C-alpha cells in the first residue's frame, strides 16, 4: 500500500461505513488523504441528520409532520431526490416506494412492535410542485421513509466529492450492502466485492467505477416477518428472493433496483441500461448476465 492511503470507519445511517482511499491524481500527503476521508464522514453524517426518520428534527421528519397540512418547501437537493424516488417507483411498478414509512410503523419495523395498520401509502399520494419546490401529501396517514435509498444517495455524493478532490482509487461501503468503487485498485485490477460477505458461496463482483447494492430480507425480522416491505401489496413481501444485488454506475439507482428486485426478481428485465443484477433464491445465484461472477470484462450485456 502506498504511504498516502487513508482509511476511516464510522457509524451512521444505522450501520457502519468504511472508506479506503488508495490513490490520487497527484501527490497527496497522508494527512490530506485522511482529510478527504473525513469529508466523506461529514457528508454522510450531514445527510443522515436530514434523512433519518428516527430524529424529530430531520428534514424528512418535518415533511412527514407537515406535508398533509400544507405544502412544504424543499431545497433543490431534497426536491430532486424525492422526484427521482417517485421515478423509481414508476419504473419498478411500485416495488420501490418511499411512501412505505407508515407501513413500516404499522407492521412494527420502526417501533419494534407491530402497530395498528391505519397507514396510507402510495406514490400517487405525494405531490411535488417544481415551480414552488414543494411537497404535499394527499393523505394524513402518509409517511415517507428513505431508508432504502439513503446510503446509495450519499455514496453518489461521495463520488462527486472524491472526483473533485482528485481521488483516483477508493472503495467505500455502508454496512457492506451499499458499495462504491472509485476507479480500480492501485494495481489496475478491479475492486473485488463478495455479494454477501457472510456467504462464502456468494459470487464475487468485479467493480471499476461502479456501485453495488445488496438487498436481502435476512436482516431485521419482526413477528417472524422479513423486513422487506412490498409496497404494491401493502405488507411485508411474502416470498422475496433471498438476496438481490444490482451493480452499475449510480449507487442510488442500484439501491432502488435491488430493493425492487428482492421483492420481484422478474423485474430484472426492466433494469436500466448499464446495470446488472444477481439474484439468490434458495442456494442458487442467478445473474442477469451469463456468468455467475460478473465483471465488466466478462459481462456480455447488462441484461
Amino acid at each position, binding site marked *: 500500500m502506498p504511504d498516502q492511503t487513508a482509511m476511516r470507519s464510522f457509524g451512521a445511517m444505522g450501520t457502519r461505513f468504511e472508506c479506503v482511499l488508495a490513490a490520487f491524481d497527484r501527490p497527496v*500527503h*497522508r*494527512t*490530506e488523504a*485522511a*482529510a*478527504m476521508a*473525513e*469529508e466523506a464522514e*461529514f457528508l454522510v453524517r*450531514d445527510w443522515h*441528520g*436530514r434523512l433519518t426518520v428516527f*430524529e*424529530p*428534527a430531520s*428534514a424528512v421528519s*418535518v*415533511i412527514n*409532520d*407537515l406535508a398533509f397540512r*400544507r*405544502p*412544504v*418547501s*424543499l*431545497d*433543490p*437537493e*431534497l*426536491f430532486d431526490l424525492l422526484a427521482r424516488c417517485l421515478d423509481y417507483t414508476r419504473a419498478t411498478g411500485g416495488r420501490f416506494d418511499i411512501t412505505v414509512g407508515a407501513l413500516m410503523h404499522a407492521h412494527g419495523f420502526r417501533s419494534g412492535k407491530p402497530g395498528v395498520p391505519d397507514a396510507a401509502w402510495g406514490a400517487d399520494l405525494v405531490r411535488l410542485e417544481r415551480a414552488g*419546490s*414543494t411537497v404535499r401529501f394527499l393523505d394524513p396517514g402518509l409517511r415517507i421513509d428513505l431508508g432504502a435509498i439513503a446510503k446509495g444517495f450519499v455514496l453518489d455524493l461521495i463520488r462527486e466529492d472524491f472526483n*473533485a*478532490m*482528485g481521488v483516483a482509487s477508493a472503495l467505500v461501503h455502508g454496512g457492506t450492502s451499499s458499495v462504491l468503487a472509485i476507479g480500480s485498485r492501485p494495481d489496475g485490477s478491479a475492486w473485488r466485492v463478495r455479494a454477501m460477505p457472510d456467504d462464502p458461496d456468494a459470487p464475487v463482483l468485479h467493480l471499476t467505477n461502479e456501485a453495488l447494492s445488496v438487498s436481502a430480507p435476512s436482516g431485521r425480522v419482526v413477528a417472524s416477518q422479513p423486513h422487506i416491505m412490498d409496497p404494491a401489496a401493502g405488507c411485508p413481501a411474502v416470498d422475496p428472493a433471498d438476496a438481490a444485488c444490482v451493480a452499475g454506475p449510480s449507487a442510488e439507482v442500484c439501491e432502488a433496483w435491488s430493493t425492487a428486485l428482492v421483492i420481484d426478481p422478474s423485474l430484472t428485465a426492466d433494469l436500466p441500461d448499464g446495470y446488472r443484477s444477481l439474484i439468490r433464491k434458495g442456494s442458487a445465484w442467478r445473474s442477469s448476465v451469463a456468468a455467475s461472477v460478473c465483471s465488466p470484462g466478462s459481462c456480455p450485456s447488462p441484461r
Partner: protein
Amino acid sequence: MTDIDRRQFLAHAAGTAAAFAIVPNLAARPAGVFNASNTLRVGVIGVGRQGRAVLGELGSLSGVAVTAMCDTDERRLSAGLRRVAGAQSYPTIDAMLASNAVDAVVVATPTHMHKDAALAAMAAGKHVYCECPLAHTRADCAAISQAARGANVVAAAGFQGRANPVYQLARTFYRSDSVRDMVTMRAQNNNKTSWVVPVADRATHKIHNWRLDPDVSLGLAGELGAQQFDVFHWYTERYPVRVIGRGSLRAHREDGREVHDTINCMLEYDDGAILQYSATIGNSYEGAHEVFYGTNAAIKLAWSHGWMFKESDAPTQGWEVYANRQQFHNDEGITLIAGATQLAEQGNLQDGVGLPYTSLHYALEDWINAIGSGGTPACTIGEAARATAVGIAANQAVREARPVDVDLTGL
C-alpha cells in the same frame, strides 16, 4: 425591524418561549422548511462546513428564509445554493449587503475575517450572528464589540452553551447551590481529526486551511476552547485572570504543521480556583465536555446531554427520586432533563434524555427570537468578546509556553 410583521413575529417568539417553558426538549417543532409570507430574510457569509450547517439549521426554523449567501469558493457556493431553495449568491459581502435582500446575516467565515464582515453588516443595519470565536485578535474583538454597542441591531455570537436547554437547566442547579462550594473545574475537547480541509487546487490550500496558519489561527485553545471556557464564565459569572499552557504535536508530526494538535491549559481565577482544559485532535475518547466539581455534587455537560453526580453526604432533594439515571463505571449520574417534571407526569421521562436539536439550532433560534422580540440574545457580542479574549490568552500561553494574563479591559 423592517419587512417583518412584528406582531406575528412576536407571537411566534412568545409561543416558542412558552413551549420551551413546558417541555423544552419536545417543543419548538420546526414549522419547517416551508415559506411563510412574513419571514426574516437571512444571508449567510461563508458557506464552508460550518456555513452549510448553519444553512441546514436555518432551514428548520419557522419565520426564516435564507435569501442570500456569499463565499469566495465557487464549489462551496454551488453546494450552498443546492441546500437552499430560492437563495441568491453574491460575489462579495458588500454586494450582498447592498442588494437589500437580507434583514440579518450569519457570519461563518474563517475567524480572522469575522471583523470585516460583522462591521459591514452592522453598518448596513443588519442583525448579526457571528460564529465563535468572535475574532482572532483582541483588537478585532474590541472593534466588533464597540460597533455592536452603537448599532441598532440584534447582535449575537455563537457561544452555544448559553442557548442550550440542557446547559440552561444545569445552570439553574449550579446557581441554586446544588453543587455547593465549587472545588475545581475541568473541560476537554477530544476529536480525532486532521484539521485539514482537502482542496483540489493547491494554490488555495493555505486559504482554506487557515486554522493551521499560526498567523491567524487561535489553535485548539481559541477555536475550540473559547466555546467551552464561556460555559464556565456564564455559570460562575467570573473570568480567569491568568492562563498557563503547553502544547505539542503528538498525532500530526509529519505534515509540517506548526499549530499544536494537543494542548493542556490551566486557567487560574483570582481566588485560586482552577479550570483545567485539554484538547487534542489525535484521540476522540469522551469527546467534548465540561465538568464542575462542587462539595455537594459534580455537574458534567456534554452538549446534548448533562448529568449530576451527587456526593454521598449531599442532602437529598425530592425530585431525585423520580430521576433518570445513568451508570458511569462506579458513579451514577442523574440525567439532567429539561421539562423533566412534566415528562415524568406523562410517563415519558426517558424521551427527554438528550436534546433533539443541535446546540447550533438553539443558538440560531435564540437569535431569531431576540430579533423578533427586540430582546437580548443569550450570548451578546460583549460576552463573546470576553470569552474570545480568554481563548486568545490561552492560545498565546500554549504557543509561548509561558503564563499569560487575561486582559478584559474595555471589552
